[in-house]
Structures are given as structure tokens and as C-alpha cells.
């Protein structure tokens, strides 16, 4: 069961990150993104913390996010991520896709209106 949830989480991490950054409306670093995703999921989705970074970097390569280093030399520097316009558009597409999928699954399993 845990592996099934893992597979579902892997497929939805990108949209979860995009939605988080839209809702929070401020640049966030990787640790804060994980912390807030974990809080939103109330611990149900167990994020292997380090794996958020390859995902963030791929999203940046795809133009969904942009990043910049913040902090002065000699202090702790952080790489902060913000959403791009392409990321916002991608989120709209993914949200519609997810809503359709969710509705169809509910219908398939007879959970509609339950």
C-alpha cells in the first residue's frame, strides 16, 4: 500500500509544488517547500525530503520555476524558488486534468456523492 501511495505522490508532486507556490505567493527555499507540503498533507504523503531537489531542478529546467540565491557572503545562503508564467499556466492545465481524473475515478468506483 505504501508503494502505491508513493507512486501516486510521485505523479502529483509537481502539481503540488506549483499549487503551493501560487497559494503562498512568495519565494520559498527547498526545505520550506517540503515543510509546507508536509503540513498541507498532514503527514499522509511521506516526502523523501532530498528528492524534492531533483524535482525542483527539473521544473526549473522546464521553465516552470525560476530560482535565485539569497544571502550575503559569510551568511547562510538560500536558493529561493518562484513560479514563472509558464508554471502558472501548467498549474491550470494540471488542475483541470486532476479534477477530471478525480471525478472519473469517483464515478468508476461508485463514490460520487458519497
Amino acid at each position, binding site marked *: 500500500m505504501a508503494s502505491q501511495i508513493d507512486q501516486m505522490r510521485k505523479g502529483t508532486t509537481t502539481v503540488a509544488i506549483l499549487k503551493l507556490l501560487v497559494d503562498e505567493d512568495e519565494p520559498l527555499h527547498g526545505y520550506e517547500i517540503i515543510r509546507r507540503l508536509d503540513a498541507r498533507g498532514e503527514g499522509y504523503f511521506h516526502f523523501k*525530503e*532530498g528528492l524534492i531537489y*531533483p524535482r525542483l531542478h527539473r521544473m526549473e*529546467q522546464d521553465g516552470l520555476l525560476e530560482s535565485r*540565491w539569497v544571502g550575503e*557572503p*559569510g551568511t547562510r545562503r538560500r*536558493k529561493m524558488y518562484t513560479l514563472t508564467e509558464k508554471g502558472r499556466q501548467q498549474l491550470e492545465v494540471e488542475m483541470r486534468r486532476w479534477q477530471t481524473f478525480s471525478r472519473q475515478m469517483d464515478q468508476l468506483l461508485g463514490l460520487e456523492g458519497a
Partner: protein
Amino acid sequence: MSAGQASDPASGSSPAWEGASQVDAVLEQVRAQLDLDAEMEHDLLAELQGHLEDAVAAARARGLDEERALAEAAACFGVEEVGRELQAAHVGWGTADGVVAAGLPVLCALILRWLVFAPDGTVVGWREVLMRPAFWVVALAALLVPLLRFPRWRYALVSWAFFWAMSVIFFAWPAVQW
């Protein structure tokens, strides 16, 4: 890059933090999975270092001692998987960047040669070249393309230096056949 470099002040971390060496040991395990250019690895490890330091600090705030806090942070982190995934995420891009980085100075040099020499093969002269907007467009491209494309300021400076070196060589030894 060694793990020790990860806590170097130049990396922007907090070297005085007492658990830094243990965090570096974890980072070294990640680094062992990477085979990217030095600057890319430095950036990746600096980002991961900040994460681990935050995670250890949070665990300590919950009352764990230093060793257990680090063990918990490392366990939640997924050290080996992260290294493999980061390598997979960046290796292709590093190659593409390398091709562009190598090709750009060559392209700039070819355009420069076209600008510096008149059709009869004589050098047009510094004054005339420096007055040509096309010269400055190429010069700025040699600086800004690597900076904005990668973004890698070291590439940009090397490309910029290469461009000016080629300019000087073209003017100083115009008889050399290129």
C-alpha cells in the same frame, strides 16, 4: 569538491555551526554519486547543505541531541537516491552547456575576424573597429550569453577574456593566417 569545501565561508554557509562536519560527511555521500562540473556540484551541495542544517536544527529544537538529529535528518533525506536523481537531472544539461560554452567563443572569434579584416585582407585598425556597433554586439554577446544562458559568471569571464585576447592577437599579428 570535497565535503570540507561545503562548509567553506565562500559557499555562504555557517562554518561555525558545530554539526557542520557531520553534515559534510552526508554531503560527501551525495557528491560521490555526482559527476558534473565543479561549479554545478558546488551549487547543488550548497543547496543541500542548507537543507540539512535546517533539518538538524529543527530536530534539535525538538530535543534530540546532535548525533540523533543528524541521523534523523540523513534518514529523511534519502542520501543515495538524491545523488542519483540529481545526477540524472543535470547530466544532459551539463553536456549541452559544455557544447554551447565551447562553441560560443569560436563563433565570436569567426565574427570578430570578419569585422577586423577588410575584404583585401588588411586590418581595418582599432579605432575603426571600436566604432563599429557590430563589434560591441559581438563583444557583449561573448559576455552576456554565457552569463544569462547558463548562468555561469566564470564561463562569461572566460568567454569575454577569450574574445579580447583574440582581438589583440588579430591586431598585433595581422599577417598570421587564421
